[in-house]
C-alpha cells in the first residue's frame, strides 16, 4: 500500500498552510486515497491501476490547494488544527498561470465534446475574421502603409484644376513647372511625363510605358535602385535608362544582369544604369525611367502641358500655405485664368496615389465589418444556447465549490479560444483570398504589390479574433456566473421567461444583414443596369484594334500604311466596315472642346457651348452602326483631304442647333470654321455609364502629322484605333483579322485586338466586383442571421417544451401552438426589419456614388429585400414551431419535470 501523503502534501504546498493544519489535511485526504486504492484492488485492479485511480482523486479542474483556503475556521478552539490560521498569501503569478492553463485545457475539452457547436462557431468566425483580415491587409497595403520614398509625408503633387472638371488632375507645361519650382515654400521639385517607347534587346522588340523625368527626380524621392545607380543629372557617356525590376527580369532574365547593358530606345542606345524595385516605382506602373528631353525649338519651350509635378514641402511649409502661394502665382501670371477658376491644386502624394480607391475600400471595410458583427452575434447566440443547456453542468460545479468568477473566467476563456482559433483559420482564409485578389486585381488598385499578410495584418487579425471572442463571450459569461441548482429547477417549471438576450441578438443580426442585403441589392441592381444599358452602337458585332505605329518614322509612309491596312481588312469576307478613329468605344471619352456656333449669339456670362470632338475615318458610322438621321456621312475624299466638314450627334443638335436648319450651319472649332453636313444618333462612345454627350465627328485618318518649325521637323501622333464591324461568328472574324495583320507593313502593327463587347464587360470590372463581393457578404450575412433566428426560436421552443405540453394537454390545437410560436418569431423579425431598414436608409447616402440608375432609397429594392429576408427568417421560425407540436405532450411533461 503506497503512502499518498507526499503526493497530497506536494499539492498543498502552494496554499502555504500552517504546518499543523497541513498535516491534518494531508492525513485526512491521504487516508481517503488509501481507501480508494484498496477498493480498486478489491475490484480486481492491478497495483498500478489502483494507484492511478487513487491519484485521479486529486485531479479536478479546481486544484486542491486553491479550494482549500476557503476552508472553515470559525471555531478555532474546537478544531485545534485551524488555530494556526491559514497563512494565505496573495495568490502567486504561478498560481494564476496554473489555473489559466487549466481553464484553457478545460475549454479545449468542452469544445471537443461539442463538435457540432464548435464546427458551426468556427466556420462562422473564420468567415467573419478571414474576410476582415483579408480586407485589412488590402487597406493596410494600399491606404495605410507609408509610401516607400524618403520622408514621403512631405511630398505633394501639383496639378492644374480647371473649372469644368476641378477634380481631374491636369498636367502642367515646362514653363509652369519651372516657375513653380522656384517657390520658396518648396524644398525641391521635379516632374515626370508619360511616354511609350519602343525598346530593342537583341532581336526582341517591345514597348514600355516609360517615364521621362526631370533631373532632380531621383534626389527628390530619395530613390535607391536595388542594383546600380539612378540616372545622372548630366550623363557623360550617352543617354541612360533605369528599369523596374519586373521589366529588367522580363527583358534580361535576371534583373542584376541588366545593369550596364545597352538598350536601344527609339533607335538610340541607352545604358541601363540601375534597377528600381517595383514597389519603389513612381508612377507605380512605370517600366522604365529616362531623362526627359524638353521639347524646345530654337530656344522656345513648346507649350505642351504634359508634366506631372512633384514637390517636397520645406520643413516650415504646409499644403495650405502652399495653396495660397500657388493661387497667387496664377493670379499674377494669368489673371484671366484665375478669374474663371483655373488653379493649381496641391495634394499629398499619398492622396494622389490612393485617394480614388479609398471610398471603395472604406465601403468594403464597412461591409465585412458588418459580416463580422453578424458572425459575433451568431456565435454569441450559439454560446447562450449552449450555456443554457450546460446550466446543469455549471450548477454542479458551483455546488462542488467552483467560484462564480472561476465559471465566468472559464466561459470567457472558451470564447477566447474560439476567437483565437477563428483568427488562425481566418488568416489562412485571408491569405488564400488575397492571392486570388492580387492575381485578378478587379479594382485595379494602385500599390497592389504592397499587399501582404505580414506582421501588422497578423496582429490585426489576432486582435479582432480576441475582441470578437470578448464581444460574443461576455453575455454567455455573465450568464455562466449566474444560476444555481435552484435556478435550474425554477426555470424549467416556470417555462422560459427570459431569453431576451438571445432574441435581442437575433434582432440585431437581422437588422445588420438587412442593411447589407439592401446595399448589395442596390449595387447588383446598378450593375445590371450598367450591363444592360444600350450603348447606341452594336457592341456585339464590333472589333476594336489598337494600332502600334512603329517609331512614327515618316508621317506619309505611316498614314499610307494605315490606309492600306484598312483596305486589306475590309476585303476579309465577313468584315463589313473598317474605320480609323482616335478613340474606340468604350474608353476614355474624347476631350471636351469649346465651339462657337453660327447664328447662336452668346450673351454676356453665357457658358460657351462645349462638345467632344473626335476624328474618325470614312466608314466609322457604318462600323458602329450609328444611324444617320439627317444629311450625309463622310466620303473617302472628306477623310483624305481632312475637309472642314463635321457630323454632329443628336444630342449636340438638340442642345445647340435648335431653331433654323441644322445642316449647313457653321461652327468655329480650334480656330477654324467647319460646316455641319450630317446628324447621327447619339451613342455612349466613352464610358458606357455616361449618357451620350454633345459630340462632333471630324473626318480624318492620319495618325501621324508633321510640321516643320525653324528647320526641324516635329512629328505628332494621335491615339490610333481601327473599329471593324463583322457579321457572323466574331471569334472567327477576329482570327481572320489576326491572319491579315501579320502580313501588314511593320509601320502598322495591331497591338491588341478585342471584341468590343468584351471591353464593355471589362470596363465594368470594378462595379461587378463590388456587386459580387457585397452580394457574397450579404448572402453569408443573411444565412448567418437565418441560423441565428432558427437557433433562438429552437431554443425558445425547447425551453418551453413543458409549457407547450401543458397547453396541449389543456386542449390547445396544434395550429394554435404553431401560430403562437410564429407570432413570437414575427416580433423578432419585424423588429429586425424595421431597424435594418432604418439603418440602410441612413447609410444609403454613403453608397450613392457607386449607384447607377438606382436611387439609394429605391422603394422596390427595399421592399423586395425586406420580404426576402423576412421569408427566410419566417422559414427559420417555422421549423422549430413544427417541432414544438410534433412532440407528445405527455412525453414533454415527463421530460421537463425530471
Amino acid at each position, binding site marked *: 500500500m503506497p503512502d499518498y501523503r507526499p503526493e497530497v502534501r506536494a499539492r498543498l504546498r502552494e496554499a502555504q498552510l500552517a504546518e499543523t493544519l497541513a498535516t491534518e489535511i494531508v492525513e485526512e485526504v491521504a487516508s481517503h486515497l488509501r*481507501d480508494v486504492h484498496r477498493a480498486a484492488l478489491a475490484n480486481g485492479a492491478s497495483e498500478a491501476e489502483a494507484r492511478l485511480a487513487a491519484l485521479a482523486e486529486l485531479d479536478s479542474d*479546481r486544484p486542491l490547494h486553491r479550494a482549500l483556503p476557503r476552508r*472553515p475556521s470559525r471555531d478555532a478552539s474546537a478544531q485545534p488544527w485551524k488555530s494556526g490560521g491559514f497563512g494565505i498569501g496573495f495568490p502567486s503569478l504561478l498560481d494564476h498561470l496554473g489555473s489559466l492553463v487549466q481553464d484553457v485545457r478545460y475549454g479545449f475539452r468542452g469544445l471537443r465534446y461539442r463538435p457540432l457547436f464548435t464546427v458551426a462557431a468556427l466556420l462562422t468566425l473564420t468567415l467573419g475574421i478571414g474576410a476582415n483580415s483579408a480586407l485589412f491587409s488590402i487597406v493596410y497595403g494600399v491606404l495605410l502603409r507609408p509610401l516607400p520614398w524618403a520622408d514621403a509625408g512631405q511630398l505633394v503633387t501639383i496639378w492644374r484644376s480647371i473649372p469644368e472638371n476641378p477634380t481631374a488632375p491636369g498636367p502642367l507645361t515646362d514653363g509652369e513647372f519651372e516657375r513653380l519650382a522656384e517657390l520658396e515654400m518648396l524644398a525641391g521639385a521635379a516632374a515626370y511625363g508619360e511616354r511609350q517607347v519602343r525598346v530593342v534587346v537583341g532581336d526582341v522588340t517591345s514597348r514600355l510605358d516609360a517615364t521621362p523625368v526631370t533631373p532632380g527626380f531621383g534626389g527628390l524621392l530619395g530613390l535607391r535602385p536595388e542594383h546600380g545607380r539612378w540616372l545622372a543629372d548630366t550623363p557623360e557617356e550617352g543617354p541612360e535608362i533605369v528599369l523596374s525590376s519586373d521589366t529588367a527580369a522580363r527583358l534580361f532574365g535576371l534583373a542584376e544582369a541588366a545593369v550596364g547593358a545597352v538598350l536601344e530606345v527609339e533607335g538610340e542606345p541607352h545604358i541601363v544604369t540601375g534597377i528600381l524595385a517595383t514597389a519603389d516605382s513612381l508612377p507605380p506602373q512605370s517600366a522604365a525611367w529616362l531623362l526627359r528631353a524638353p521639347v524646345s525649338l530654337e530656344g522656345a519651350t513648346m507649350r505642351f502641358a504634359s508634366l506631372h509635378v512633384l514637390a517636397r514641402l520645406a520643413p516650415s511649409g504646409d499644403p495650405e500655405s502652399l495653396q495660397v502661394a500657388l493661387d497667387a502665382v496664377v493670379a499674377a501670371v494669368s489673371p484671366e485664368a484665375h478669374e474663371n477658376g483655373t488653379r493649381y491644386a496641391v495634394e499629398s502624394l499619398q492622396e494622389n496615389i490612393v485617394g480614388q480607391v479609398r471610398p471603395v475600400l472604406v465601403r468594403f471595410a464597412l461591409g465585412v465589418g458588418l459580416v463580422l458583427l453578424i458572425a459575433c452575434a451568431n456565435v454569441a447566440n450559439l454560446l447562450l444556447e449552449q450555456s443554457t443547456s450546460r446550466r446543469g453542468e455549471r450548477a454542479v460545479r458551483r455546488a462542488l*465549490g467552483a467560484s462564480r468568477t472561476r465559471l465566468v473566467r472559464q466561459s470567457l476563456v472558451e470564447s477566447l479560444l474560439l476567437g483565437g482559433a477563428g483568427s488562425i483559420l481566418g488568416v489562412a482564409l485571408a491569405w488564400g483570398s488575397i492571392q486570388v485578389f492580387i492575381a485578378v486585381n478587379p479594382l485595379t488598385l494602385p500599390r497592389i504589390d504592397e499587399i501582404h499578410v505580414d506582421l501588422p495584418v497578423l496582429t490585426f487579425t489576432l486582435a479582432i479574433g480576441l475582441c470578437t471572442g470578448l464581444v460574443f463571450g461576455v453575455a454567455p459569461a455573465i450568464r455562466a456566473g449566474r444560476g444555481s441548482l435552484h435556478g435550474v429547477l425554477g426555470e424549467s417549471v416556470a417555462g422560459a421567461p427570459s431569453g431576451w438576450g438571445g432574441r435581442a441578438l437575433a434582432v440585431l443580426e437581422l437588422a445588420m444583414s438587412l442593411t447589407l442585403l439592401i446595399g448589395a441589392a442596390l449595387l447588383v441592381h446598378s450593375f445590371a443596369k450598367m450591363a444592360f444599358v444600350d450603348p447606341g452602337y452594336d457592341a456585339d458585332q464590333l472589333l476594336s484594334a489598337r494600332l502600334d505605329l512603329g517609331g512614327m518614322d515618316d508621317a506619309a509612309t505611316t498614314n499610307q500604311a494605315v490606309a492600306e491596312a484598312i483596305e486589306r481588312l475590309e476585303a476579309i469576307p465577313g468584315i463589313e466596315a473598317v474605320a480609323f478613329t482616335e478613340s474606340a468605344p468604350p474608353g476614355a471619352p474624347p476631350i471636351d472642346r469649346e465651339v462657337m456656333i453660327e447664328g447662336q449669339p452668346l450673351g454676356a456670362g453665357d457658358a460657351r457651348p462645349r462638345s467632344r470632338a473626335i476624328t474618325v475615318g470614312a466608314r466609322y458610322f457604318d462600323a458602329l452602326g450609328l444611324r444617320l438621321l439627317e444629311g450625309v456621312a463622310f466620303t473617302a475624299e472628306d477623310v483624305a483631304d481632312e475637309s472642314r466638314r463635321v457630323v454632329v450627334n443628336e444630342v449636340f443638335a438638340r442642345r445647340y442647333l435648335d431653331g433654323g436648319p441644322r445642316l449647313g450651319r457653321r461652327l468655329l472649332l480650334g480656330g477654324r470654321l467647319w460646316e455641319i453636313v450630317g446628324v447621327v444618333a447619339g451613342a455612349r462612345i466613352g464610358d458606357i455609364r455616361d449618357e451620350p454627350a454633345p459630340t462632333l465627328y471630324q473626318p480624318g485618318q492620319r495618325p501621324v502629322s508633321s510640321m516643320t518649325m525653324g528647320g526641324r521637323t516635329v512629328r505628332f501622333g494621335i491615339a490610333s484605333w481601327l473599329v471593324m464591324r463583322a457579321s457572323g461568328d466574331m471569334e472567327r472574324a477576329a482570327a481572320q483579322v489576326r491572319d491579315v495583320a501579320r502580313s501588314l507593313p511593320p509601320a502598322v502593327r495591331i497591338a491588341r485586338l478585342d471584341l468590343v463587347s468584351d471591353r464593355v464587360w471589362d470596363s465594368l470590372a470594378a462595379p461587378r466586383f463590388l456587386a459580387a463581393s457585397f452580394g457574397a457578404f450579404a448572402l453569408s450575412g443573411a444565412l448567418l442571421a437565418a441560423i441565428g433566428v432558427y437557433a433562438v426560436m429552437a431554443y425558445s421552443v425547447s425551453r418551453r417544451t413543458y409549457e407547450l405540453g401543458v397547453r396541449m394537454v389543456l386542449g390547445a390545437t396544434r395550429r394554435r401552438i404553431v401560430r403562437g410560436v410564429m407570432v413570437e418569431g414575427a416580433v423578432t423579425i419585424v423588429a429586425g426589419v424595421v431597424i435594418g431598414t432604418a439603418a440602410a436608409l441612413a447609410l444609403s447616402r454613403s453608397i450613392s456614388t457607386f449607384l447607377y440608375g438606382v436611387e439609394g432609397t429605391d422603394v422596390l429594392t427595399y421592399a423586395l429585400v425586406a420580404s426576402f429576408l423576412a421569408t427566410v427568417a419566417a422559414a427559420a421560425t417555422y421549423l422549430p414551431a413544427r417541432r414544438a407540436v410534433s412532440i407528445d405532450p405527455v412525453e414533454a411533461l415527463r421530460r421537463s419535470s425530471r
Partner: protein
Amino acid sequence: MSGISDLKKGSAETVILALLEEGPLHGYGIAKLVSERSGGALRFHAASLYPVLYRLEKRGLLRGEWQAGKGERRRRHYRLTPKGRRTLASQRGQLEAFVEALGRLTGIGNA
C-alpha cells in the same frame, strides 16, 4: 441518466447533509455512498469533496472529529449539527413542495 436528474433535485450540499442525517460518516464513506446510491452517475473526487465538507463545516452545518476504531488508523468523522439539520429540513421542504406541485400540475406523479 438518472444520476443527472437526481442531481437536479438537490445540490451537492443537500446530498451530503442528507447522507449525514443517517449518521456520522468519514469523507471516503460519503464519496462511496454518493457513488453507490446514484448508480455511479454521480462521483465526488477527493479534490472537490473536501472543500465542500470544509465549507459546510465553516457555515456550522456539520462538525468533523478525529476518531479511531480498534486497530484502525484514525479518520475524521463528520456529523450534522442542529443548524445543519434545520437547513436540510428547509431544503428538503422546498424540494418536496416542488415535486408535489409538479405532481398536481401534471397528474403524472413523481416522475
